[in-house]
């Protein structure tokens, strides 16, 4: 600990802390350490898990892993990758179309009461467990229609799962557009739709996009609703009313195979690895796109 500089009068030595001040500085330092620890604990599983998966997935990861269908105890993830992309495309299309329109309605067109009820509904739907949605999809789209397990049912069910996220972020994005922009547009004689389309849309775009990508990342990881609706297959579906495979299903099916069938476990790890890669790509691209828009809007929210 520093010693007071004798050439300075009492209280003039700026490098000599004592008493209460010393306690305050100590508390500050301890808090810094605690926060750092929490941060490390947050990141540890990510890093550790990535290593753990990569270690098992990568040594045997070849072009064949992507290009071959799974057959018997061999093959790759080809049909499951296509199945995942197909289901995700369907569900994103459905959920974006409906979610964005519904969000526009509550943000701009709905009477205040209706909008509040709608937002509450969005929260509730977002909270419904995915397996319950899956059961609903199974009952409605698999049994009731008589289609049996099929890709379309998987897409629709996953779409229902994703809708509330897109709906809520769209609503938020448009209600957050600065009010004076709306007043200015209306004062220019624009209709509500013209205001939305020409002024609010570019401003709301980054938030809306984040919503869509977040929903995609969440949907990508869902397993239960797909098991109950899209069923399972290890070939590429030739039409939407056939069952299909998907990466999450691969993990679910193969994670507990005994090690004598080691190839199955490896496939599960490779599927996990691919899922993580796709999520990373989604996240990075949403950042890049949102940043592009934010750059254009700099100064607007000042």
């Amino acid at each position: 600990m520093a010693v007071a500089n004798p050439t300075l009068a009492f209280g003039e030595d700026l490098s000599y802390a004592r008493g209460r001040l010393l306690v305050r500085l100590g508390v500050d330092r301890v808090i810094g350490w605690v926060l750092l620890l929490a941060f490390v604990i947050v990141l540890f599983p990510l890093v550790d898990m990535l290593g753990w998966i990569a270690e098992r997935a990568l040594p045997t990861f070849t072009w064949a892993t992507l290009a071959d269908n799974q057959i018997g105890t061999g093959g790759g993830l080809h049909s499951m990758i296509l199945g995942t992309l197909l289901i995700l495309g369907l569900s994103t299309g459905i959920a974006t179309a409906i979610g964005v329109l519904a969000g526009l309605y509550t943000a701009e067109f709905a009477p205040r009461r209706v909008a509040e009820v709608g937002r509450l509904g969005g929260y509730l739907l977002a909270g419904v467990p995915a397996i319950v949605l899956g059961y609903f999809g199974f009952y409605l789209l698999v049994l009731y229609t008589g289609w049996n397990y099929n890709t379309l049912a998987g897409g629709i069910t996953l779409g229902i799962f994703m809708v509330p996220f897109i709906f809520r972020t769209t609503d938020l994005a448009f209600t957050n557009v600065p009010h004076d922009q709306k007043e200015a547009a209306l004062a220019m004689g624009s209709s509500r739709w013209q205001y939305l389309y020409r002024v609010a849309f570019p401003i709301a775009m980054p938030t809306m996009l984040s919503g869509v990508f977040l929903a995609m990342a969440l949907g990508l990881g869902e397993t239960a609703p797909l098991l109950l609706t899209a069923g399972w297959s290890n070939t590429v579906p030739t039409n939407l009313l056939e069952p299909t495979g998907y990466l999450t299903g691969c993990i679910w099916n193969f994670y507990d195979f005994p090690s004598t069938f080691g190839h199955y476990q490896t496939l599960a790890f490779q599927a996990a690895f691919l899922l993580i890669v796709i999520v990373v790509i989604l996240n990075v691209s949403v950042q890049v796109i949102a940043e592009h828009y934010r750059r254009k809007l700099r100064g607007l929210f000042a």
Partner: protein
Amino acid sequence: MTAALEDELSYLPRPPLPIPASAKPRDAEDLGKSSFSGVHPMSSPSPPSPTAPPSPSLGAGSSPWASPATRPPSVITVRELWVWAGKKAILSDINLDFAEREVTAIIGPSGCGKTTLIRTLNRMTEVSPGLKVRGSIQYKGQDIYGRAVNPVLLRQRVGMVFQRPTVFPLSVFENVAFGLRLNRESRDVVETKVVDSLKRAGLYEELKDNLHRSALTLSGGQQQRLCIARALAVNPRVLLLDEPTSSLDPSATQKVEDLLFELKREYAVIIVTHNMQQAARVADRTAFLYQGKLIEVDETKRLFENPREKLTESYVTGRFG
């Protein structure tokens, strides 16, 4: 007074082919570059008042319209206007005329209803829910709150500029073109009018080399003049300015005020300001509002130097507010 084609607020479809002869000279003039000729540009059926518009060099106080008899015709007439927010009257019994080619300032302490008053004039009160408007406001003889009146047409005739510059996140060009695009004007018309409006707002020289830069990169003063240009592009008759310089520095304020002298050759300008010096500088007439009531309206010079009401006198001499 019957309304000219352009002033007809309830007229939704595009004008039919035989355009009234009276509409032609104005259109032709507007498509020309700049119409600072001093000629009254409107197709108003009544001929413009013989009194020449005041030269900008004349101070605001020296308006030539000394007596009501020689004042230009009024474009907006407010009669018995009440605005309610729930049970509270924000404006009570306002009677006021706004004349063509005049700058009218509305002054008064914060919260006296200045902003609400000008917002009633183009029905922007409807955008903020919970306000009830009663009474009559006529634009060229048409009740603007009438059933047939289309607020979109009204707002094109009665343009508005807000306290904070509110440029859209578009290019300079597209900002000015905004109202024209809403009307699906042709490319040539848009081009001409954008340049013309920027010239009128005194921005063209500053920005002509880069009309496609983002409007958000402009300075505050430029943004505010851009907002004025944007309002001018759709051919308004009346321009409402809600404290247009309160967020600007003195030199930007100066530019906007200079602009007002130009604008009043063609438009009725109504400006809300909390700055009495500004009212004295720019306005031909000044209205003093206090607690939602119109206390006094008069020629600016008289209102400031020789007010009739005690309340006005205490306010303009800075005893309250």
